């Protein structure tokens, strides 16, 4: 029955192992043996951040010297680029985290990061898990990080700074008095719902969220529901300024089918820097500024970051 089973066996696994080695070469890293990766440093505090907004918080607390690794999507402030990358926010790489021998890993609370935190704890690594979904939680997280890193004072200062920054925009959009819609995804349509920090920002500024559904944080909208929102302003996000122009153009084409909505009729479709709007972090006042600019500009204009 078997014809040369041994040859086939060897060829099968030869092929697989070949593939594996090819992958090692192609990936350009992780070769079999390396040198001892990290020289030991006398610092006792060695922090790893697993999310871009956590990195921003650490920087804002003046802890940049203590950071030894950040998630690969941590792009602000620009200096964050020089740290070792430990995998993406969605898919953290436990090996990379352990290889920098952290004394404190700051994580968010969702499944992937919680799993990683459990593994790190087991490996004897201290972790700090924070949930940041609302502005209050942001303050709580800053306070928690401040306590864990012995920088309570800077934490309180930062919280005050953010709160004051937001307060400066209180009621600024009230005269514009508009219903605002943050479309997070076009197809299928999905927008920021009532129980989000976006609503909190709008309410501080004196505007309202056009979506009042409270079941989902980011509810899907049927075209009918979308028309019924009667939004005066539509906000979308884009990554870089090049994308802004492109997204602006495609947004105009996309929304032209919803003629009944004031935002579409008056061309109030606004593109905002996604890092600014999507990250609940120290730059929240800037996000607020961008939103207020969007709402109150008579002309079709982009919300300018910084």
């Amino acid at each position: 029955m078997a014809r040369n089973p041994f040859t086939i066996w060897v060829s099968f696994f030869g092929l697989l192992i070949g593939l594996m080695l090819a992958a090692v070469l192609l990936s350009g890293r992780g070769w079999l043996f390396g040198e001892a990766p990290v020289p030991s440093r006398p610092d006792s505090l060695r922090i790893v951040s697993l999310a871009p907004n956590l990195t921003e918080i650490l920087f804002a607390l003046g802890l940049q010297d203590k950071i030894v690794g950040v998630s690969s999507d941590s792009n602000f402030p620009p200096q964050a680029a020089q740290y070792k990358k430990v995998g993406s926010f969605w898919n953290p790489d436990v090996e990379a985290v352990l290889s920098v021998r952290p004394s404190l890993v700051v994580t968010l609370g969702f499944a992937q990061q919680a799993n990683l935190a459990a593994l790190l704890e087991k490996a004897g690594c201290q972790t700090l898990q924070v949930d940041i979904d609302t502005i209050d939680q942001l303050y709580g997280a800053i306070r928690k990080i401040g306590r864990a890193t012995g920088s309570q004072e800077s934490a309180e200062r930062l919280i005050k700074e953010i709160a004051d920054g937001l307060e400066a925009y209180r009621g600024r959009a009230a005269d514009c008095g508009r219903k605002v819609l943050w479309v997070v995804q076009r197809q299928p349509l999905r927008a920021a719902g009532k129980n989000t920090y976006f609503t909190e920002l709008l309410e501080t500024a004196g505007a309202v969220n056009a979506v009042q559904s409270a079941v989902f944080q980011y509810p899907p909208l049927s075209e009918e529901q979308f028309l019924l929102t009667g939004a005066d302003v539509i906000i979308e996000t884009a990554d870089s300024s090049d994308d802004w122009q492109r997204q602006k153009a495609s947004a105009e084409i996309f929304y032209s089918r919803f003629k009944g909505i004031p935002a579409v009729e008056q061309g109030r479709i606004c593109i905002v820097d996604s890092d600014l709007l999507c990250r609940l972090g120290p730059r929240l006042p800037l996000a607020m500024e961008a939103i207020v600019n969007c709402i109150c500009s008579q002309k079709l204009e982009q919300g300018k970051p910084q």
Partner: protein
Amino acid sequence: MITSRQLLKEIGFGVGGLAAVVLLCALIGSEPLSLEGIVKGRQPDAQIFFQVRLPRLMLAVLVGAALASSGAVFQVLLRNPLAEPYILGISSGAGLGVMLAVLAGFQWSWGELSAQSLFAFIGALATTALVWWIGGFTGRTGGPGMILAGVVVNVFFSAVIMLLTALAKAGQIQTTLFWLMGFLSSYTEMKIWVVSVFLAGAGFGILLWLSPQLNILSLGTAQARSLGVVPERLFPIAFIAASLLTSAAVSLSGLIGFVGLIVPHSVRLIFGPDHRRLLPMCALFGAMFLAIADTIARILIPQAQLPVGVITALAGGPFFLLLMIRQSKPVYGGGL
């Protein structure tokens, strides 16, 4: 016919090969480790090697072996070359179990056994029982009736999963999707290990014990009956044992496709259809295959770990086709 001595020699070779593969895979990863550091127990090298890579590889070995050997058994029991461990509704049943656990917000664990693993396991077994019960009405065990029942239950439960997805919050959907895509985690609690190894071992042991009868069954029901094997008696035991194996694998790693289909076929093409040889070889090959596939998944794109199912399909599919074209020979009685 093979002698037991020959078989033991082959298994010995296989186990040696598996150990070598695991060791090699454990030395490869996104971070370069120094061999000296591992041996001397220096951190973080030893930590990464022993606490991150080895547990994950062990999981790959267990899951790969379980899926491949149960796939081989389902193929002969259902007399269908397309049969795979998930064909009888186990995938959607386990998926539904996890979805329910997530939706109900079960964060509790019993000992260290988490609600999700437990629900996956129960969902998988309950669905198999349901399919078995429905299939029973069609009269013939292992006939097309059972496969059809499995397909329909799968579709039905998938629809229920979609329905529940509409009710779930974003974070909950994440957990379920993650699970449906299949994943191998470095973090598995000891108690889960013990339970799974025990269940999978029991299932595999029973199948191995039944393998001479499975050989006879593969000749056809009528033939088997004339040779003194009662299919109605053999079928439920083998069926439960194979389901146990699959359910244990599913509750450990979610749904990892393709291993249970291509490994048994490849092994059958190479070693022939004798189950006394086929089952251990399937387990060994499945283990090696998943260990290597997972290593590729870990390193292919730096620091963005791919789902291992992508690799099993990409690497296994073409190879299997090649093997099939070159080695084709009717081994199922009716031809492949």
